[in-house]
């Protein structure tokens, strides 16, 4: 019973949303609008609450054990300070919330993102080697793309950008399309399995 009821609710809502997506009946459209604007937001609110509580719990436990103290304290302070600033002064324009976002979060995230360039440089020296024929083909494609996306490609040979475009438009795109079709079919199958009730792992295992 504990599993059957959520399974039935899930199946019913799956079928309902599936029907609403394709129906153009005014009643269906109105119900669709209501679900999208109200119910999804309520679910999002609860999901957010679970995330915040879980984050706080994990950090508090680590503080109790004395692990990574400075990082955990900063994390929790961020979690507390940002909502307080948002509630008191709002999140618009020149508010303290936006000041912290612009002057702390943006530079920190950009810095972490920029570190990727250094890892790419290191990996290109240590790992990008023509150890086999497939690796050599991958290496040649990467070099072509890099050259064509800099301004040097056209300078070395007029055909270089054309060859790089060919790689992007045919082999690369074919592989990408195959992946996309695979993902699409996989999503469809999984959704059907969940709606019909064959897939029950989301209930915490296969013990129906």
């Amino acid at each position: 019973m504990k599993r059957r009821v959520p399974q039935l609710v899930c199946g019913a809502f799956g079928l309902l949303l599936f029907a609403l997506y394709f129906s153009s009946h005014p009643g269906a459209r109105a119900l669709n609008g209501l679900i999208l604007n109200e119910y999804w937001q309520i679910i999002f609110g609860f999901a957010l609450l679970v995330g915040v509580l879980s984050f706080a719990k994990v950090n508090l436990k680590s503080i109790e054990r004395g692990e990574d103290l400075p990082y955990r304290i900063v994390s929790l302070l961020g979690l507390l300070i940002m909502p307080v600033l948002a509630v008191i002064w709002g999140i618009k324009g020149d508010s303290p919330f936006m000041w912290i976002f612009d002057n702390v979060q943006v530079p920190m995230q950009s810095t972490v993102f920029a570190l990727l360039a250094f890892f790419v440089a290191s990996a290109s020296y240590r790992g990008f080697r023509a150890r086999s024929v497939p690796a050599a083909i991958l290496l040649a494609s990467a070099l072509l793309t890099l050259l064509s996306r800099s301004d040097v490609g056209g300078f070395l040979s007029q055909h270089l950008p054309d060859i790089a475009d060919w790689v992007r438009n045919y082999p690369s795109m074919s592989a990408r399309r195959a992946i996309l079709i695979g993902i699409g079919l996989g999503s469809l199958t999984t959704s059907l399995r969940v709606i019909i009730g064959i897939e029950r792992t989301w209930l915490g295992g296969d013990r129906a």
Partner: protein
Amino acid sequence: MRLEARHYTFIGLAVTVVAAMLVGFQPDVTPSPDTLRMYEYIDSLPEGSIVMLSFDHEASSLPEIRPLAVALLRHIYSKNLRPVGVALLAEGTGVGYGLMRQVAREYDKKYGEDYVYLGFRPQYIAAILSMGESVPATFPEDYLGRPYTELPMLVGVNTYDDVAGVISVADGSFTNHWIEYGHGRYGVRVSAFVTAAMVTTYDPYLASGQLHAMVGGLRGAAEYEKLIGIGGSGARGMLAQTCSHLYVILLIIIGNVVYFRSRRKGGGV
């Protein structure tokens, strides 16, 4: 501390980028067909058309997103189109508003009449689908807290049928959702300004016509800046990008030379 090979590669990259930025030389770029297509699309829209801009990115990609968004907004304002900004990611909310306001000042545009910012709506798929049913119901108020119905620019704007198209400024997979739900369900024309890493992800959609036009990466920004005739941080960053690409190519070559020499000697790397 003893410096290892990777430390030298880090130092080399830092020196390359800083030196390239200090030189101040801007290489000439030739606009690609993709960038040209986007430029012609925006250029072809009638004056006063409403264009929905969706800021679907995080703060981390701002150095690449900002030149793209600024070039796009300059073109939009110079053509007297009227952008409506939304954000599907919370982090893009403040950034999107700041960029729209900053470029609007350059063109003396008035908020509410020439541009509007609706802000963030959680649950991106629900937000896209919900705007297809009703934009005012999805955003009863704008980002500044003004009721939707009191914004003169949005009179008569109810669904995607009332906008010329959606342009997603994205650093991840959010453009996918616009294509799958906005275009797939409601038929709205979707275009994108994306980071370079995402270009190949959207190539199949561009080829199939599900994505109308796409501009990608810092190079795309530099190309767009050239087309609109106003230089910006895209063009300024191109030399640094080119030099860092060449540096990576050099490292790949050196790495392979070292590898093959050591293999010939019978050792492994």
